[in-house]
């Protein structure tokens, strides 16, 4: 970790990979859902990255890491509880949505992933990154902000603009 604090990428990569089993086992103690466990692991890695300057090499590493992992696990479980209060499952619904609004012809007009990738290339770099991080890689706003270096506000704005621009591009393509 000391080397990582000094910017040694190889040491940092080695460290991140080495801590995953420990973080995963801590997360599994709090939660059995594999996707939640993976989210806890990822949030812990992001937090380790964000607060890596707080690690004091004179002190043991494990308590520092465990405190972060436990905190992130608690945060995710609390978030789940909050969300489950307001959300219901849609499994029993048998309705189909036949209205025009539910069948987005503009989107249907674009058939292939390749075509979407081509459209993405036509967006400004920051808008493209916002879409890639938030929609394609399904990062949270906090994760995307950490990785991209854009603020949460800028990501929201860029994602909104990117979707608007994509919609416009799709409409142009959909026209005969």
């Amino acid at each position, binding site marked *: 970790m000391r080397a*990582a*604090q*000094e*910017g040694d*990428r190889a040491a*940092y*990569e080695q460290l*991140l*990979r080495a801590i*995953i089993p420990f973080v995963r086992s801590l997360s599994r103690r709090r939660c059995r859902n594999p996707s939640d466990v*993976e989210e806890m*692991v*990822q949030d812990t*890695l*992001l*937090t380790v*990255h*964000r*607060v*890596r*300057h*707080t*690690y*004091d*090499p*004179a*002190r*043991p590493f494990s*308590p*520092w*890491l*465990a*405190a*972060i992992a436990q*905190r*992130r696990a608690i945060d995710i479980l609390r978030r789940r509880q909050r969300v489950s209060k307001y959300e219901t499952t849609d499994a029993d619904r048998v309705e189909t949505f036949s209205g025009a609004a539910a069948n987005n012809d503009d989107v249907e007009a674009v058939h292939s992933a390749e075509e979407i990738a081509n459209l993405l290339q036509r967006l400004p770099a920051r808008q493209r990154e916002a879409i890639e991080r938030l929609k394609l*890689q*399904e*990062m949270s706003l906090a*994760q995307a902000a950490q*990785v991209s*270096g854009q603020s949460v506000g800028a990501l929201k704005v860029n994602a909104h603009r990117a979707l608007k621009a994509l919609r416009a591009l799709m409409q142009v393509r959909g026209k005969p």
Partner: protein
Amino acid sequence: METEQLIEDLVGGLQPVRRLRPPGLRASLWLAAVAVLIGLALLRFADWAGVEERMAVPRIALECAAAGLTGITAVLAAFMVCVPGHSRRWAALPLPAFALWLAVSGLGCLHNGWSLHGPGGFIGDSSHCFVFIVAVSVPLSIGLFAVLRRARPIAPLPVAALGTLGVAALADFSLEFFHPFDVTVIDLALHLAGIGVVMAAGIALRRRVLAAG
């Protein structure tokens, strides 16, 4: 998103960082700076003849010392819990001093016959105590949070609670040097209300003032 992809992104974006100094040292430096500021303000503005007279009463001197000790221990605890890996028991550090301050203040109320009225009526001059605690705590809180947010606390709630308790207690300690009358029930209630308002504001704003560091 895949964990593998995340690792690659984090490693790719790695920059050297300036290591945070040990929390005990950071707390000591912050407290020393505040001690100088408060000391200068007291030298300039306090009524020292009155202070000497009141501090001659052991109970009042103990009340003042307990308030100061609450402030110091709460600020130290805020710095400690700010950094991952330090025991959560640090959060209990200010409790003995705070309990002592409450007990000695309660003794003062008892000494003054549990009178609800202070000088100048039911609330009277005690309203100044409330204003003083809040007014002194605001700049101290800003200064403290500016330093604490460098650690990007992963659990901002205890940090905000302890930090604001610390600055409010330090404000209360400073107030003892301007307090021209002994504690009464309503006076103690307004001191506690001042501390409570400062803590509530700090806790409410914790994510904005601490998480974005």
